[in-house]
């Protein structure tokens, strides 16, 4: 089963519609959390929101994840080593205030962490490869960054 999540804050009808059309043709099993989106999928089951435990369970048990290119979705997929396909939200469709999701999708696609479709028409093709996709795990340096900040804080005098 593929788990489609678009977050609960902002709608993302373009993605749900694209997945719906792909499922209509290829018949993959999909379950979705669609939040504020108004498009109602015909070909798979969808709920408005899930609580955290349910969300985690669907996420963990899915063979693949489809979502927007938000850092929340991306880092969760990497954490659980899940194949992830993203469709970046775009400014030109009024989905977000700038195109930063395109930048991060391109970069992480290049690094082998995820699959990306940049327009809705490309989604169906990319979806076919999703379950077989093996994401490259990501090395981070959060300890070094925290250490840099801690070192800075040691030099800060108290105001009070």
């Amino acid at each position, binding site marked *: 089963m593929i788990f489609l999540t678009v*977050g609960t804050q902002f709608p993302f009808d373009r993605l749900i519609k694209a997945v719906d059309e792909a499922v209509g043709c290829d018949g993959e099993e999909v379950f979705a959390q669609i939040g504020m989106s108004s498009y109602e999928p015909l070909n798979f089951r969808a709920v408005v929101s899930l609580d955290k435990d349910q969300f985690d369970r669907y996420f963990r048990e899915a063979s693949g994840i489809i979502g927007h290119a938000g*850092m929340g979705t991306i880092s969760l997929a990497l954490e659980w080593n899940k194949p992830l396909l993203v469709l970046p939200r775009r400014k030109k469709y009024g989905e977000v*205030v700038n195109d930063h999701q395109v930048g991060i999708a391109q970069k992480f696609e290049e690094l082998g962490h995820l699959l990306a479709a940049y327009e809705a028409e490309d989604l169906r093709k990319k979806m076919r490869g999703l379950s077989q996709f093996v994401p490259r795990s990501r090395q981070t340096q*959060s300890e070094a*960054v925290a*250490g840099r*900040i801690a070192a800075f*804080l040691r030099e*800060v005098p108290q*105001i009070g």
Partner: protein
Amino acid sequence: MTDIHGNRLKIALVASSGGHLSQLLKLRDAWQGHDVFYIVTTDVVKEKLGADKRVYVSGECNRQNIFRVANVFLRSARAIRCERPDVVLSTGAAVGCLSCFVGKWFGARVVWVDSITNVNRMSLSGRMVRYITDLCLVQWPSLAQKYKRAEYVGNII
């Protein structure tokens, strides 16, 4: 509890819900031993942070709605005016930017960590706030070359 220099600071930790906050929380080792409080954008993340934390909720905003920006500004300003932090540390977005300016006004040091999602240039908030930062970190090496005040140590997510 104090750090090895006996220097216990009050630190405002500021982030919007979602990716900004998850990046901030990856840095928790940085503020061990200091007195911290949070400014976040939604009530739901209070639970994520834990009941024992001091949390102020500013509401959400983006640059397209000036009234919401004003509301977030007032709420974060109120939190900072009451708490008088020594340092404001933020991973973005708008609420972080606004809080950094307010904090600076009240004499705090400002630490900005630009979100990893900004690959080709710093976020709008980051570009505005970088002039008043005391430490400005970016998560891609190319950005540290592009912006004079920005420093690259590594990525946090």
